[in-house]
């Protein structure tokens, strides 16, 4: 099982790459829409990237509950604990 901090690092790197930002500009508290400027298409693209990188499935309802980076980190950590 990966540590939460490792997962957070990996999520931030996926998000940075997808949104064309530097990892240093993103933290666990960053909100996708308000802070990172993501729009609805960015979020779909981002979820696909996360699914590929972590080899997981993320449902649409799950996606709509993600507001911050740490929401995603928490979701992935829970999956990996199972």
């Amino acid at each position, binding site marked *: 099982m990966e540590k939460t901090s490792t997962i957070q690092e990996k999520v931030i790197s996926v998000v940075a790459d997808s*949104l*064309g*930002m530097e990892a240093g500009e993103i933290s666990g508290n960053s909100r996708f829409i308000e802070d990172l400027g993501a729009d609805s*298409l960015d979020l*779909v*693209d981002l979820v*696909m990237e996360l699914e*590929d990188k972590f080899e997981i499935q993320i449902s649409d309802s799950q996606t709509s509950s993600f507001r911050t980076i740490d929401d995603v980190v928490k979701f992935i950590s829970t999956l990996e604990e199972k």
Partner: protein
Amino acid sequence: MRRVVVTGMGVISSIGSSLTEFWESLKSGTPGIDWISTFDVSEYGAKVAGQVKDFDPTRYMDRKDAKRNARFVQMAVASASEAYDDSGLENSLMNSERAGVIYGVGLGGMDVIEDQHSVLMNKGPSRISPFLIPMTIANMAPGLLAIRFNFKGTNFTLSTACASATNAIGEATRLIRGGILDIAMTGGSEATITPLALAGFSNMNALSRGTPDTASRPFDRERDGFVMAEGSATLIIEEYEHALKRGAMIYGEVVGYGSTDDAFHITSPEEYGDGAYRAMKMALEEAGVDPVEVDYINAHGTSTPLNDLTETRAIKRLYGNRQDLNISSTKSMAGHALGAAGAIEAVATLLSMKNSFVPPTINYSSPDPECDLNYTPNFGVEKDLHYAQKNSFGFGGHNASLLFKKL
């Protein structure tokens, strides 16, 4: 009548990615055609193209926008950025609701379609990018330019294959003349040096199978097809009084536009160039200019056996055998950028007027007895240009012609 002038230009092409570089190449007859380097062409008949090798979209937009836009849109932003800077425009100097973007694109995001089709075949529909559609649609070039430059008026892409950009400039001119717009960004963009597009054009026998140094040889007896190129050019055109009021630099006036169709065949031009002749004549008539007053024609001159012959016939019907009329095909240097070609060549035409210099048709070595006009072979000539005409013709039988006047 409201008059329309050109007050800014920008260009991205195989022979230069700025007005300065582009003009230096045109003036010195330096070609931009080379072996295709972006994918394996060993199984293709045509192996050369006019690529924009050093194009870096992040010079013109942030990484996110670069990732979210197809190459033809990136290039449109690049040429429009140069044109906007060149025009000296600022938002405070215009009514953005009367500023439009009318752009020519022949195909659009072929690169993205091909890439995403492989994803579909290999990974299934759930992996298709949500950006596939916005990246591919041909109207995203003017769509993004509206966002970038806050042009809120009439906005569309016009698609008439290789005549697209010339039609776009003509239609934009009409919108300004008609009082709908005061100012327009117009021109074209195309970036389809891709495996699928190359195979498609190649199997039509439309492309030259030659080597980089001689493949594009318009009007030469040995010509065997065009050389595909990519690029974009943007012109800022403006109502004359509007331009004067803000003290804009003026390259020239768009005094005439003609637009016709052959109504003949899906891809072949009509044998005697009747549609081309009518478009050229219409442009002159609109301007009230007699053929003897025209000093230069920047020809469509694709280097295909049929185009160069029928275009020559059309020119002779309108102008007779005038050897003092300079004609040149700058595609001999830059290649044929399809939907963007008319814009790149309109920029060439206006720079020729500004610099009083006719760029050459290079790679011209064997005269064709049926193409016997003055094509300005191999070396450019210094000459004052009062009126210059720009032709473009496209699959679908489209013919478009513009007439520019030096002010």
